[in-house]
């Protein structure tokens, strides 16, 4: 069972607050504050009951992300719908390293010493970089699918964006491309 310290809980709450901003404005104005309060209530109740926060909060993030896509699909323009799906998917994907990092007591995000290789230890910079990469790749794929009509061209362009994403990720994580290019020179 994994319990979170106050700092980690604040990080989770701030992330949830950011996620709520993706709802259509009328929905956010009507329910945003209540949803954030419900998130706090759930955290408090779990803490009082001695339950693990990580799994139940992951459910909150996942369910809310799906709900954002649904609300946007019902009310937003095509552009905001596409962007919301991309943003929601990015949040869902980033939830995985966020939860894994918060489970690590030595993680820098929790004020720990960090430097552990056998556990997740993403920093804010890692999240921002990966978020930007995912958003760029998602928007790129959405744009190519919107602009191109021929199935072959759409598949090719989407694959190109996907390869670019993987290449950049590998470069940022290991510097493999720089080393390769440096080796050729």
């Amino acid at each position, binding site marked *: 069972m994994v319990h979170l310290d106050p700092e980690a809980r604040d990080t989770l709450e701030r992330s949830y607050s950011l996620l709520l901003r993706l709802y259509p404005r009328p*929905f956010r104005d*009507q329910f945003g504050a209540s949803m954030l*309060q*419900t998130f706090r209530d759930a955290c408090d109740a779990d803490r009082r009951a001695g339950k693990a926060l990580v799994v139940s909060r992951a459910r*909150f993030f996942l369910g*809310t*992300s799906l*709900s*954002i896509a*649904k609300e946007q699909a019902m009310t937003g323009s095509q552009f905001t719908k596409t962007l919301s799906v991309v943003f929601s998917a990015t949040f869902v994907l980033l939830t995985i390293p966020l939860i894994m990092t918060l489970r690590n007591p030595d993680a820098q995000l929790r004020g720990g010493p960090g430097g552990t290789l056998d556990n997740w230890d993403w920093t804010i910079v890692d999240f921002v970089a990966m978020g930007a990469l995912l958003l760029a790749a998602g928007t790129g794929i959405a744009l190519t699918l919107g602009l191109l009509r021929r199935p072959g061209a759409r598949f090719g362009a989407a694959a190109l964006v996907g390869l670019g994403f993987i290449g950049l990720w590998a470069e940022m994580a290991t510097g493999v491309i720089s080393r390769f290019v440096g080796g050729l020179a």
Partner: protein
Amino acid sequence: MSESGHQKPLTPAVLHILLALADEDRHGYAIMKQVKIDTLGQVTMGPGTLYGSLGRMMKAGFVEESQSRVDPEIDDERRIYYGITANGREALKSELSRYRQAVALAKDRKLALEAKAHGAS
């Protein structure tokens, strides 16, 4: 909304929220907890489903924001309570009536099947 007795069937989420609000006004997290208790843990309603449904139920006139506070000492203004309206109560009655009819029908069918089985043997 149509006349009583001719309401469209409710979604499971709307039915559970109306049931949770039937005896007292509740705030968001209290509704989620009550739904879990009512369904013996079989239904866990997330915040997205809850507030999406509440928005549509408010538009349909089934629920409204309530001024009631269980304990004003611990309930600050950020915790908004929701209460069932007369329309909501009517919709709930109508839905429960549909469920009763379905259960009665199922019982009849089961009796008919048993009668057939007995007749064949």
